[in-house]
């Protein structure tokens, strides 16, 4: 299976139906993408597929052949944090941090599409992502902060 992940071509020896989440975590050791529910209902496993936030736990690896996959590890470039990552730190938009990679992926996708989203657009775009620690208001704030940084 030929994949392009975080700009690198990868060749994986896994069955076509393997969830992308497992391929990333087990075959490529990209463990920043998390398992949360296995049904695409919590957002912990979000990755970008051709720029679209996609729950990797319900996406067979064969679906992303010849497509550009970006994981949380590919969001910062050469150790330089992305504006969204900086904003999450600045606004302390996390507690346990388990949802954070998926949150950042969804936020990056949103800002790429809509650089100045309103509060309600942010909430709508982020609705699939769960933060069980419930610091949602800080996450909204972080996305607004990142929007201004750009």
């Amino acid at each position: 299976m030929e994949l392009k992940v975080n700009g690198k071509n990868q060749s994986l020896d896994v069955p076509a139906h393997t969830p992308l989440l497992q391929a990333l975590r087990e075959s490529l050791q990209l463990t920043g993408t998390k398992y949360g529910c296995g049904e695409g209902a919590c957002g912990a496993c979000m990755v970008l597929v051709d720029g679209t936030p996609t729950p990797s736990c319900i996406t067979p690896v064969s679906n992303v052949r010849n497509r550009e996959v970006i994981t949380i590890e590919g969001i910062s470039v050469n150790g330089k944090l992305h504006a969204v990552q900086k904003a999450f730190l600045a606004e302390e938009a996390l507690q346990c941090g388990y949802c954070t990679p998926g949150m950042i992926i969804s936020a990056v996708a949103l800002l790429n599409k809509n650089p100045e989203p309103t509060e309600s657009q942010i909430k709508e775009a982020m609705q699939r992502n769960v933060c069980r620690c419930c610091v949602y208001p800080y996450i909204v704030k972080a996305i607004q902060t990142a929007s201004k940084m750009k």
Partner: protein
Amino acid sequence: MKDQEPNDILYPEQYELYENGQSLIKPHTRRRFFTLLGGGVAAAFTFSDVLSREVLSSLDLQELREAEDSIAAWLHVHEDGKVTVYTGKVEVGQNIRTSLAQAVAEELECDVHSIEMIMGDTFLTPYDRGTFGSRTTPYMAPQLRKAAASLRVYFEQSAAKQWKTDVKNVKAQKGSILNTRSGRSVSYGRLSEGRKLLHPVNEEVSLKSASDWKVAGSSIPKINGEDFVTGRHIYTSDMTLPDMLHGKLLRPPAYGARLVNLDARRAEAMSGVQVHRIGDFVGVTAADISTAESALFALRAEWEFTQQPSRSEIFQHLKKHASVSGEEDASKKAAETMFQQSANKLEQSFEIHYIAHAPLEPRAALAQWDGDILNVWTGTQRPFGVQEELEREFNISKEKIRVRMPDTGSGYGGKHTGDAAIEAARLAKSAGKPVKLVWTREEEFTWAYFRPAGLIEVRSSTDTTGHLQSWEFHNYNSGGAGIRSMYRSKADHTRFHSSNSPLRQGSYRALATPANTFARESQINDHAILLKEDPLSFRLKNLEDPRLKHVLQVAADTFGWKSSKKENTGYGLACCFDKGGYMATCAEVQYNAENKEVKVIKLVGAFDCGTIVNPKHLESQIMGCMLQGLGFSLYEYIDFRDGKILNPSFSHYKIPRFQDMPDIKIVMVDRKDEPAAGAGETPITCVAPAIRNAIFDATKEKINRLPMLVKGL
């Protein structure tokens, strides 16, 4: 030690601790930690991962004898000036890795970023009962503070001695001791050289008062925050070891189901698959998760079912099976007599459904048998408790069991047990290789313990001037925490009655305090309404504690309690004192008469937990509590029938999400004259009754049930 954690504050609803036979926790001990391998060797062995062996050269064995009080148990300064702090408390997102580092930096006078926290490692850190009950800030922080201040004093004395000057001529600052006369300075690293670590902690050492804090009391950002926003942080579920296998377990299809027959031939025939059967415990291992899942799917199991109570009958069931006590008590008779004589009587009951913690990182463990040492990494709030569970399970001594706890994807009181650790260790032992086990979301929603369901019956009365007369309060099964009323009354009879829970149950953030507060604050509200009194004034009149009255007033003022309401809206409030913290919450709800829907518009919380250690992280805890509390107030509940959990997924168990967020305001009352209390629990307690009272205000409908907005429960 004065600040030692009390041993006697376990509540009945901490079922998971009793279930594991650990209700009576040994008062022990850091002494064992040093003596387990005998004297200085113990220290060398124990610290070998992080400390240089030169430490040993200067060990004073006389001091070692009292090692439970030694600085070395808590702190070490390396030659390069880096500081290592050891604590058995663990990080689950409450940010104590940061707040405890602040406490040490403050007293030691060093840079907070020069500190590395070793947390929850049974080989390296002093024994700790667990990270629950809001005890880190009131008990662990003072302990580390004293150790750090003792070490600073020791450095001051050492430097003064070196310079042959009086100790009052030296001053600790920024990781060094400065000679204020000569201007010379010497770093802690130089002074320590890794020696003299076993100096005793001075219990009487003077600590800085909160008004002099520079590092503590400020909003230091999460110290390892960057690891989380980059995905670099390794949770238990992310770990791997060479040759590691993935495990999956065969779970019963329902509570009370028993395995009567297993055909594992198809699974065993799969390449790289092993099936492990130890009594009724059945698991599979394989080199990758997909294969393990396929093997699990290939098992053919036959089950025998037993009759189990269902959700629809849970409250009758709990009451029917409750232990009855106190019926003949004088307090019961007094409350009854007073009730009958009172002018205004009110009697109602409240139903509390089971809920799940649903931490986003499910239970996970990685187990490795290395010779006769069992290494386990697991996300738990009680690494030493897990060590004890493993000791009993495998009948090996604790000294051979190392449990480590990486910063974990939250717990909320749900990760007190070692289930995943035991399961992974069984599989690893049987497979002869390291095994990682990560529970699925369905397992997490089914086999982890729940917050108990409960029935609460309240009977109380007031006189014509609006003073409480009698107060009778019975809690069936949900728990005894926060059951005591803060309101003055002439006769009080309050009892918790244990019962027979059909589902596994245990601790949840703030234990039963949210349930008891829901019933109490609803009852108080309704008394005020019955008397046509303002619920705020009624409370202020019947309360005594000035700090509780203060947060009530602050919340009400911030909220605009007296402000005029928009059409179809209602206001509600509630307050609570628990675990050293004072909380008040006001809620505004909007009622849509057409579709009969209720929406929470605004929440205001005021919280006083004494001195504030880290304002931003405190606000974050209050925020998280209030919004998480929104879930069980409005829509979270576990549905079950005939022993089967019917909604074990995020698509069927609704939890708060972005679009559910009301407008929220938080006021933190900083009391620098009061000791800092924990803050991760108490702010969750008032959301439900505040909303319930606001719904009553808007609709005249009393919803005496949690969750409130699920129809047909």
